[in-house]
């Protein structure tokens, strides 16, 4: 089974795939915004984005899939350093077995970055009582005319949803698969589907 961390990054009209390195930094501009998708299975991942040009934009979607005794340290730092810059981060994860996930998400908005917009949302599902997810989202804002929002939620699969599927004759394995797929599929690009589906199949 494939367990190297993956980076899918949009270059023009195509999506390039390469291994995700320990430290990634990006400096998107108006003409070349950053649109990327990360799949993280284990280890340290540090992503830094500097929005230095007025109106620059980045969208970072991250999916972590933690199993066994794997440990993930995920740090995402987005720096808004010019006015009217915009960032969007969606982080979703599934943790099972005895895995541990530590997520730090920072949005820094400089005093020069007026009218900027920073968004971050983190949601994760715990499939085992022994799995741990610790999320620390942080906002550091030095401008007074900005929009910034963040949110985080972690918990087991919804019991009522699971019972509803079971009550229709769907097996527990299949029901969990359906719920997990519906949880993440709105964010996974086609290029990442097969590997994600395979992981879910192996871990429910």
């Amino acid at each position, binding site marked *: 089974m494939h367990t190297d961390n993956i980076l899918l990054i949009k270059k023009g009209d195509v999506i390039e795939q390469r291994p995700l390195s320990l430290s990634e930094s990006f400096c998107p501009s108006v003409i070349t915004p950053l649109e990327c998708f990360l799949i993280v299975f284990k280890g340290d991942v540090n992503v830094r984005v500097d929005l230095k040009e007025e109106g620059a934009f980045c969208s970072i979607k991250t999916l972590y899939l933690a199993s066994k005794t794997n440990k993930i340290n995920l740090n995402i730092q987005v720096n808004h350093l010019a006015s009217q810059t915009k960032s969007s981060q969606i982080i979703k994860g599934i943790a099972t077995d005895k895995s541990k996930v530590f997520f730090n998400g920072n949005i820094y908005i400089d005093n020069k970055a007026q009218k900027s917009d920073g968004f971050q949302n983190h949601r994760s599902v715990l499939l085992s009582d022994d799995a741990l997810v610790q999320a620390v989202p942080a906002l550091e804002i030095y401008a007074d005319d900005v929009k910034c929002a963040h949110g985080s939620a972690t918990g087991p699969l919804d019991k009522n949803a699971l019972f509803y599927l079971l*009550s229709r004759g*769907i097996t527990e394995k299949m029901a969990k698969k359906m719920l997990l797929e*519906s949880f993440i599929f709105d964010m996974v690009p086609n290029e990442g589907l097969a590997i994600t589906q395979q992981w879910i199949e192996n871990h429910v």
Partner: protein
Amino acid sequence: MAFLEIKDLHVSVGNKEILKGCSLKIEEGEVHAVMGPNGSGKSTLANVIAGNPVYQVTKGSLLFRGENILEMTPDERARAGIFMAFQSPVELPGVGIAQFLKTALNEKLKSQNKNPLDAVQFIKRLKTRATALNISDEMLKRSVNEGFSGGEKKKMETFQMAFLEPDFCILDEMDAGLDIDALKTVSQGINVMREKTRSFLLITHFQRLLNYIEPDYIHIMIDGKIVHSGDKSLAKILEEKGYDAYR
């Protein structure tokens, strides 16, 4: 052997006992209604038969066609032919209705060592049942219950029931929140399913539903027990006297 036989059933949620010795017998082809005030344990009874793990059975027995279903998981019970239409169906964003029903039906066929439906057979069955309940193609393309009104959710529950063709249908507060037109459509959907080999358990507070779906028997549940049973004329008496006469 009875179709469904419940004997001296005691059920708790946490430390609170809700069913306190409930007994009920249903034969094949019969329609039974359980009526009672709020908090009497009616919905608990429905959920326990369907296997909701929130409820713990502490005493008593529950036999479906002679088989002890308390030892079966909710999905095993469903594949054995039990269906509950939920009082408050959950929303499943991202789970399409067609995919959901196809999976449910094919799991059932698989457990009976039958072949799954092919795409053409599936669409045909889906469309036929949907048309009968005035469910549009647009609605079938949506996620299960997502953004549906209360009435649409109840219609969807009836539609799922019609599609899956269970042998035992439990309808938990089917009339709650339905306007008169929706109630008629849903009742019609249920009535066409009445057959010699299919039984129903209707849970309701109100006589209103029983004007549209005529039960063979009515049971009154008070404080976790069935305190009185009779034929359909009992509904009229209840309407006049209320539940107080049975407390």
